């Protein structure tokens, strides 16, 4: 992999990872043993024929590789970039036992990038069934469901409340990890299969619940868009953002290019980001690129950081300062943020996640204050309540997630769901895997 130098990349929002060259891709592909019972495929939630496409790369038949991937995954350029491969396909690769696993994600990305530059491969669609299907949300779950259901010959309408499709791919994940023209190209390819996309349509508001339940089948992919806040003093001061707001202002609205674009954002001289997951890393790295000094505050140890290792390493290289074993107790200022007071945390007994449970320290030197003018809270999101709360007969779990069976069917027979709305905040590829399953279940349901 060739990664751009940190000093250079913090000055822009261009992609950090430049991908494999053709020579290296072919070389990497020859490492694959083309296992008869490939473990890697089990690790991929959409079950791409991994040895199949890798073998095509080794033979330099890139078009065939693209066809193989596309028959199971319409968003390979996205997945090749953002899948946590180390815990999925690559985590299962047999080569990983003794040496490094085959770099499946990088190869998938290579093919997708080749395809975009050379020859777009579009899977075939079946003849029209006359069935009408509503897909709610155009994140990875909704887009995948739309692709699968269009290919099955149904007439699909996707409703999206924002002015651009993609969900978190568009408003959440920054362009230095996932360039937006790539998201657009892959979504456009799905739309070319025949689905209609209606932007600015909030289902439950712009489309009444009765109207949309009247479709032959419905797929809910409304995501985990509800940001959590810590609930501490000073949280509503000017300059405190949820990660969702901070990232949306920059990624979707391009506030980094204000005043050329109209949406403002407080860039901050010194920014505190609270949390330790991918969302926190993304927020920290965005703030860094807008010129701030950035502190990342996480309540557990560095080795417990839930973010992908590679992203933590990127953040460190880019000069983010980590304050681990610390938790904010108060945001100081008025009306604008001037500081954040934190308490140091002791690591106590192991909890359910087998990690030590963080316990606040007591005493005078347990607390410290960082002078900051912006705080970004990246402590989690929960399932989007906007639509599902308007449908009382839709069964939901304690955390607000829509309850589905193993096929993605909800408590209402013609309503299926998948992605973060069903699982709580998870990953792109799990959302896509859910959507594929639900789409087959929808086909079965419609054939009954």
């Amino acid at each position, binding site marked *: 992999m060739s990664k751009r130098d940190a000093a250079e990349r913090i000055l822009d929002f261009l992609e950090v990872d430049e991908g494999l060259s053709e020579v290296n891709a072919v070389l990497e592909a020859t490492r694959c043993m083309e296992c008869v019972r490939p473990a890697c495929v089990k690790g991929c939630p959409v079950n791409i024929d991994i040895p199949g496409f890798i073998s095509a790369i080794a033979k330099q038949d890139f078009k065939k590789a693209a066809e193989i991937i596309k028959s199971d995954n319409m968003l390979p350029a996205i997945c090749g970039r953002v899948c946590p491969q180390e815990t999925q396909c690559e985590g299962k690769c047999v080569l990983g036992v003794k040496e490094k696993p085959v770099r499946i994600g990088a190869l998938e990305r290579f093919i997708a990038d080749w395809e975009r530059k050379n020859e777009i491969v579009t899977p075939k669609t079946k003849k029209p069934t006359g069935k009408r299907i509503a897909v709610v949300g155009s994140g990875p779950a909704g887009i995948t469901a739309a692709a699968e259901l269009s290919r099955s010959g149904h007439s699909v309408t996707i409703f999206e409340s924002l002015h651009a499709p993609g969900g978190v791919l568009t408003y959440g994940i920054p362009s230095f990890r996932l360039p937006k023209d790539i998201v657009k190209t892959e979504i456009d390819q799905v739309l070319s299969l025949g689905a209609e996309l209606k*932007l600015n*349509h909030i289902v439950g508001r*712009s489309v009444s619940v009765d109207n949309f339940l009247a479709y032959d089948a419905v797929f809910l992919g409304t995501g985990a868009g509800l940001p959590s806040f810590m609930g501490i003093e000073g949280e*509503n001061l*000017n300059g405190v*953002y949820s990660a969702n707001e901070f990232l949306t*202002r920059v990624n979707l609205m391009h506030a980094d290019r204000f005043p050329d674009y*109209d949406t403002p954002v407080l860039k901050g001289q010194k920014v505190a980001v609270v949390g330790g997951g991918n969302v926190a890393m993304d927020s920290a790295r965005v703030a860094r690129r807008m010129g701030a000094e950035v502190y990342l505050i996480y309540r557990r140890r560095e080795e417990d950081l839930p973010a992908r290792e590679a992203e933590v390493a990127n953040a460190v290289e880019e000069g983010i300062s980590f304050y681990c074993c610390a938790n904010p107790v108060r945001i100081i200022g*008025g009306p604008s943020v001037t500081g954040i007071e934190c308490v140091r945390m002791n690591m106590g007994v192991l909890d359910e996640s087998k990690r030590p449970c963080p316990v606040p320290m007591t005493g005078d030197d347990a607390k410290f204050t960082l002078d900051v003018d912006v705080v970004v809270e990246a402590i989690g999101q929960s399932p989007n309540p*906007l639509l599902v709360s308007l449908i009382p007969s839709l069964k939901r779990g304690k955390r607000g997630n829509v309850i589905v069976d193993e096929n993605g069917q909800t408590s209402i027979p013609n309503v299926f769901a998948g992605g973060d709305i069903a699982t709580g905040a998870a990953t792109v590829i799990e959302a896509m895997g859910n959507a594929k399953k639900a789409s087959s279940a929808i086909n079965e349901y419609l054939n009954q």
Partner: protein
Amino acid sequence: MAYKIEKASEIADNIFEFWIKAPHVSKNAQAGQFVVIRIDEKGERIPLTISAAKDDLIRIVFMAVGKTTKFLSSLKEGESVLDVAGPLGQPGELKKWGNCVLIGGGVGIACLPILAKALKEQGNQVTGIIGARNENLLLLSDELEQDCDELVICTDDGSRGFHGFPADILKKKLEDEKIDCVWIIGPAIMMKITSMATIPSKTKTFVSLNPIMVDGTGMCGSCRVSVGGETKFACVDGPEFDAHLVDWDELMNRQRIYPSQEKESLDNFNEHHHHCRCGEHHHE
């Protein structure tokens, strides 16, 4: 997709009325709800109240205060905006209250017609009280004459109607008769002060809060307000809330997060307006 401006006019000093074609909104809009508009590719998302809905059209009424609203006001009939999302927010509590008073201040008056009609439909007695600094800033008074059982007009300078504030009329009315529910819509400071009048009698009072929004769908938390000591997202939990529980100072602080950026943006716009953006902007 673009949304066409079917009718555009300046109905008071610097206050504009647009009818925009947006059937997905107009068919489902209820009193108290709003839309989010984005003019063009580089534009920001701004919330505006749905002031009326008829067939495929919605009406918005707005004051040109900064870059986006100034740019919007420069658009002509037949031109279009890139995005209209909605209807957003919870509809108002439209039921039979009995004797209702609706108060509009400044451009907030625009929110009253749809509300007055809906409350009349529920069988309420509806009194409108509208106020502005002077008569040139009054709007929709003819329409509200029709929609309300009684309409009182106030101006701060006495140039038309009662010389004084809507709060003065409200206080008098509270002494004279039993009022079951009050709506107050206008600038935050006006809502804060006017709603004090109903504290002693504990009269149910709604206000429509206007914090800075981005998505308007509950996804970002930009619009958070404190109501009764709890944080609420105005775009999905509101925008209407119980006036007596609102933390007004926090709201007013949060309306001023970006003063220097807003100024920069407006200055740029005033300087370049006719040269750079017009050609770029979306025509149907």
